[in-house]
């Protein structure tokens, strides 16, 4: 059965927590056919029989440490007291015999008349079995499993009551072991019975919820987890308790915890079943996920603001394009129609206006291209990088022919990439190699090698001007240029786009160079094997 496979602690199983099932004790005390019980049934029987039976009975009771077993007269005064009762409740026989059993109830329960009610119900039904909170001599409370039995003589007159009870929160060998494990757990742990009452908890749970242990034992778990937990334990017509629980096992359930002071905090609970003599108990590991929630929220917020920023850059540059189109078009028209018709100052001014507008258009287009890397990128798929290179070279045909550049390459691998963007990276790096040249023939070589992480390292090596090492970082920043505009055109977007593309692919890009000795740009991409 699934339940037993998932049992957390195999030694905490049916019949092991207690030394004797309550039912058997009940029989001993109650069954008229049982020799020792007869004593109870008929206290006025002949003396020898009585002594004999009482002896057996007392011996039996004294052996029992795990159960409080005692008798009450019809009004509830204690008339007998066993060792277990002394141990569990903390009273010696001489301290309690003759006193009313309402001493074992909390003042609230006494006020509500619970002790009297209990006697009344038991007298009516003959037997009453329940779990409830009891108070020890020292005032501490504990959850007890209790059987109350009405004792009647052969004529059917009520002679008194017998109570057999067990401290559910009390340490037994395996329970102690279990409790030790609970205490060692890093999370708050709460053990709950099928009625949704807390029967056991660890110190982390005390801390987390701000209660003392005895304030929680016997309380409804709803008090500390208002919603979503107790409901999960409920068996109904369509499912048993075990089935209800089985659906929840091993799943992290996010709920809200409530501290003693009323404050609430986010929790995640994991449930596991625990079979015991009281039926299936549920152990809940409760983790305070306030920090995780905050971190999640921060990451979300960060992603959102990054996205907004990207969106802003895109919208701003897109919307700026409109009025700029007007400025550029009309200054251009102005230049065409009126050049040489006004004076030389006018020509010069119009010239600056036209040039400024054109440059601004390029900047905005580049900015749009830069933000499109993320907003309009495609999924990374198996991409033949050699094909991407071939297409990049096709796009560069004009520049290659004009400069007589020699572009060579090794065989190149298949990688995980957005092909359009990989083409752009090749195109920008090779284009730069052709553009930033000494007089002479540009020679560019593209190769790829595997590194230890099984990533492909691409190299684009040129014989161009080279870059002063102090600018290695700067060249990848958007709109950063190393040359005056009249030396080389361009806005300084190419490498920034390369960097953004490579980073979007989960890689990095860098340069090695010396002034006058060419540059080698390297970037890495994930190989395509092992992915689909």
């Amino acid at each position, binding site marked *: 059965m699934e339940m037993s496979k998932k049992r957390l602690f195999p030694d905490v199983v049916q019949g092991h927590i207690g030394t004797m099932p309550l039912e058997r004790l009940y029989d001993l005390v109650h069954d008229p056919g049982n020799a020792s019980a007869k004593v109870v049934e008929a206290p006025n029987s002949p003396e020898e029989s009585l002594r004999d039976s009482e002896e057996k009975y007392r011996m039996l009771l004294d052996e029992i440490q795990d159960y409080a077993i005692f008798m009450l007269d019809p009004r509830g005064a204690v008339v007998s007291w066993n060792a277990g009762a002394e141990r569990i409740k903390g009273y010696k026989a001489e301290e309690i015999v003759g006193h009313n059993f309402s001493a074992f109830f909390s003042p609230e329960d006494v006020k509500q008349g619970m002790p009297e009610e209990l006697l009344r119900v038991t007298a009516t039904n003959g037997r009453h079995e329940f779990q409830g909170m009891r108070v020890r001599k020292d005032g501490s409370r504990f959850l007890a499993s209790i059987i109350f039995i009405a004792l009647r003589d052969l004529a059917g007159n009520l002679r008194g009551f017998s109570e057999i009870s067990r401290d559910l929160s009390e340490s037994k060998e395996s329970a102690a072991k279990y409790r030790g494990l609970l205490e060692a757990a890093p999370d708050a742990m709460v053990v709950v019975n099928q009625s949704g009452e807390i029967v056991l908890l660890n110190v982390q749970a005390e801390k987390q919820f701000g209660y003392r242990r005895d304030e929680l034992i016997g309380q409804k778990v709803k008090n500390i987890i208002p919603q979503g937990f107790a409901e999960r334990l409920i068996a109904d017509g369509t499912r048993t308790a075990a089935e209800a629980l089985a659906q929840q096992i091993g799943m992290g359930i996010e709920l809200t915890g409530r501290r003693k002071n009323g404050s609430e905090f986010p929790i995640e609970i994991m449930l596991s079943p625990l079979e015991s003599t009281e039926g299936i108990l549920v152990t809940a590991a409760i983790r305070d996920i306030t920090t995780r929630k905050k971190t999640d929220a921060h990451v979300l917020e960060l992603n959102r603001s990054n996205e907004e920023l990207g969106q802003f850059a895109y919208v701003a540059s897109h919307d700026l*394009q409109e009025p*700029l*189109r007007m400025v*550029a*078009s009309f200054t*251009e028209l102005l230049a065409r129609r009126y050049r040489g018709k006004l004076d030389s100052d006018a020509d010069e001014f119009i010239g600056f206006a036209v040039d400024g507008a054109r440059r601004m258009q390029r900047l905005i287009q580049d900015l749009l291209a830069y933000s499109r890397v993320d907003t309009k990128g495609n999924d990374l798929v198996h991409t033949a990088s050699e094909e991407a290179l071939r297409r990049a070279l096709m796009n560069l045909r004009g520049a290659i022919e004009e400069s007589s550049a020699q572009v060579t390459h090794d065989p190149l691998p298949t990688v995980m990439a957005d092909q359009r963007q990989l083409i752009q990276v090749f195109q920008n790096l090779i284009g730069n190699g052709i553009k930033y040249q000494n007089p002479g023939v540009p020679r560019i070589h593209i190769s790829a090698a595997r590194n230890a992480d099984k990533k492909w390292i691409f190299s684009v090596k040129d014989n161009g001007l080279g870059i002063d090492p102090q600018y290695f970082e700067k060249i990848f920043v958007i709109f950063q240029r190393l040359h005056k505009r009249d030396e080389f055109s361009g806005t300084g977007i190419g490498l920034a786009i390369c960097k953004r593309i490579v980073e979007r692919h989960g890689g990095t890009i860098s340069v090695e160079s010396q002034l006058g000795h060419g540059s080698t740009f390297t970037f890495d991409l994930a190989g395509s094997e092992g992915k689909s």
Partner: protein
Amino acid sequence: MNHIEVESSHLDVLLVEDSPGDVRLTKEVFRDTNIDIHLHVASDGVEAMAFLRREGEHVNAPRPDLILLDLNLPKMDGRVVLANIKADANLKSIPTVILTTSESEVDIVKSYRLQANCYLSKPVQLEAFENLVKSINDFWLTKVKLPQQRQGG
């Protein structure tokens, strides 16, 4: 040159465009491209429909040979204007060309679904815009056979 002949050979184009700068720019470029084009302007969607249906002050408006339609218009959106034109038995045969700054795939798809005759996006460079207007003139106003319903309605 015979005045009557010039009158009868001109083409009427309705430009639906709200930006005065764009209107002027388009007029300038059309003037340089083809002197025989009469460019009429409607600055919003409502006015465009009034022009096409010869309502109010447009009672004497000519039936255009071509409509150049921007998408983002005040009062009545260009997409609605397009839908209205194509739903109108009298107007749907007039070639309607979308001329807009939007390059959004959504706009392109939607325009063709609404039976736009073609979709052009306005280039940012003046020279490119001039080339585009030349293309419109060469294709839609020169090569293409348009229905002769000048006097119809």
